[in-house]
C-alpha cells in the first residue's frame, strides 16, 4: 500500500500503550498478568482529590517468556498520570521484584515510563520508590538480571530515574529520555536562561537517548521498534555481569573521571566533541545505524 520502506519499521515503542509493549515484547501469548484490572486494586487516594483512578494504577505486571526464557515483567503506563508512582503502583513493582527472588526467572524486565513520584500521594510514593530500589538491589544480588527499557513519551524521571540507574542494564530509543529532574522542573527552579525546556533539541541533547548512550549510562541504543527492544533484551541478558564490589568501584571511577573530563561543559554537544567525536553537531540528526558507527569506540560502559 504505502511506501514507508526505510522510514518506519515494526511497531513503535514510543506510541504503544504499556499493555501493547508487553504483548509485542514477549513471546506471543505467553504473558500472564498478576493483579489484573478485574481485581480492581486501584489507588484509594485519587477519588477524594477528584481524580479518576485506573484499574491497574498505571502499571501492568506479570510473567511471560522472552525467547523461551521465563521472565517477570512490569510496564508503566505513561498516559495515566504520567506513569507516576503512587502507593499501589509502587507496591506492585516492589512485589514483582520480591517475587523474582523466589521464582528465579531468567530476568526481570522493567518497561519504565514515569515522571517519578505521584504528587497526589507523595509520601506513599516516596516510600514506594525506596522500597523498589531496595527490592531491585536484592534481586540483582540474588543473581537475577534486571533490565530497564526506556522509550515512551513521558521519559523516565524523578525517583524512577534513580530506579533505572540501579538496573543492570538499560535499553533506550532515541526518543527516550532519562534524568532526575525533568526539563520543566529545571527551567522552573533554575530559570529559562539556564535551561529552556521548550528548546526540545536542547532537552534531547541533555537527557535524550543518544546522550545517555554516549555517557555510558545506557547500554543499548535501538530503533523505535518494539522488536528492536526485544532483540536487544534477548542479547543483553547473557552479558550482564553479577553485582560485585569491584564493579561498583569501577563505576565510581568512571563517574569521577566523567566529572573531571566534562564537569565544565555547557552542552551535550560540547561533551561529545570532548569525547573525540568528529562533527558532534551532526549526531542528533543521524539515524541509529549511522550514529552507532560514528561513535564506535568512543563510549565507555556499554556492553
Amino acid at each position, binding site marked *: 500500500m504505502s511506501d514507508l520502506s526505510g522510514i518506519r519499521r515494526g511497531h513503535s515503542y514510543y506510541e504503544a*500503550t*504499556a*499493555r501493547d509493549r508487553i504483548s509485542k515484547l514477549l513471546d506471543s501469548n505467553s504473558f500472564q498478568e498478576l493483579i*489484573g*484490572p*478485574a481485581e480492581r486494586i486501584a489507588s484509594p487516594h485519587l*477519588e477524594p482529590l*477528584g*481524580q*479518576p*483512578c*485506573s*484499574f*491497574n494504577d498505571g502499571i501492568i505486571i506479570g510473567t511471560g517468556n522472552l525467547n523461551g526464557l521465563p521472565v517477570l515483567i512490569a510496564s508503566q*503506563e505513561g*498516559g*495515566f*498520570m504520567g506513569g507516576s508512582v503512587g502507593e499501589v503502583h509502587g507496591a506492585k513493582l516492589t512485589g514483582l521484584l520480591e517475587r523474582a527472588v523466589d521464582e528465579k526467572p531468567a530476568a526481570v524486565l522493567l518497561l519504565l515510563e514515569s515522571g517519578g513520584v505521584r504528587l497526589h500521594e507523595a509520601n506513599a510514593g516516596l516510600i514506594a520508590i525506596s522500597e523498589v530500589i531496595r527490592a531491585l538491589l536484592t534481586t540483582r544480588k540474588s543473581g537475577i538480571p534486571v533490565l530497564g527499557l526506556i522509550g515512551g513519551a513521558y521519559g523516565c524521571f524523578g525517583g524512577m530515574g534513580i530506579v533505572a540507574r540501579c538496573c543492570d542494564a538499560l535499553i533506550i530509543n532515541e526518543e527516550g529520555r532519562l534524568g532526575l529532574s525533568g526539563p520543566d522542573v529545571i527551567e522552573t527552579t533554575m530559570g529559562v536562561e539556564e535551561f529552556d525546556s521548550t528548546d526540545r533539541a536542547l532537552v534531547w541533547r541533555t537527557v535524550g537517548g543518544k546522550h545517555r548512550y554516549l555517557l555510558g549510562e545506557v547500554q543499548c541504543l535501538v530503533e523505535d521498534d518494539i522488536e528492536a527492544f526485544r532483540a536487544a533484551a534477548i542479547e543483553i541478558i547473557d552479558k550482564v555481569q553479577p553485582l560485585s564490589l569491584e564493579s561498583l568501584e569501577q563505576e565510581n571511577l568512571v563517574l569521577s573521571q566523567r566529572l573531571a573530563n566534562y564537569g565544565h561543559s555547557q552542552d551535550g554537544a560540547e561533551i561529545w566533541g570532548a569525547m573525540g567525536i568528529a562533527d558532534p553537531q551532526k549526531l542528533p540528526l543521524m539515524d541509529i545505524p549511522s550514529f552507532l558507527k560514528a561513535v564506535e569506540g568512543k563510549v565507555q560502559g556499554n556492553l
Partner: protein
Amino acid sequence: MEHLQFEFECSGNREDSQQATLSGVVSSGNLEVMLENADLNGLCRINVSTSAQGFGEIWQAVLNDFVARYNLANLQISINDGGATPAVVCLRLDQAMEEYLEIST
C-alpha cells in the same frame, strides 16, 4: 468525580469469556473500558466513573446506542473516564467490544 450506573435489559447471548478485557488508557480526554462476564439476570450493567461532572444524559444517550448495537446480556462494563468526548467514548467502547468478542469466540 461523578459515578453513574446504567442498566439495560438485553437478550443477546455469547460464548462465555473467562477473561476480562481492558481497552484504552485513563488520561485527559481518554478513558479505559473493562468488559467482564457477570451473572446479572439478563442485564447489561455499565458503571462510569468520570472526572467530567454533569454529563449523565449524554452518557445515557451514548450507552443507549452502544447497547442497541450489541445487545449482550450478563455483561458488566466498567469505565474510568478522564473527560473523553462522546466520539472517543464510542470508539473505545467499540474497540473493547471487538476485543472481547474476539476472545470469546
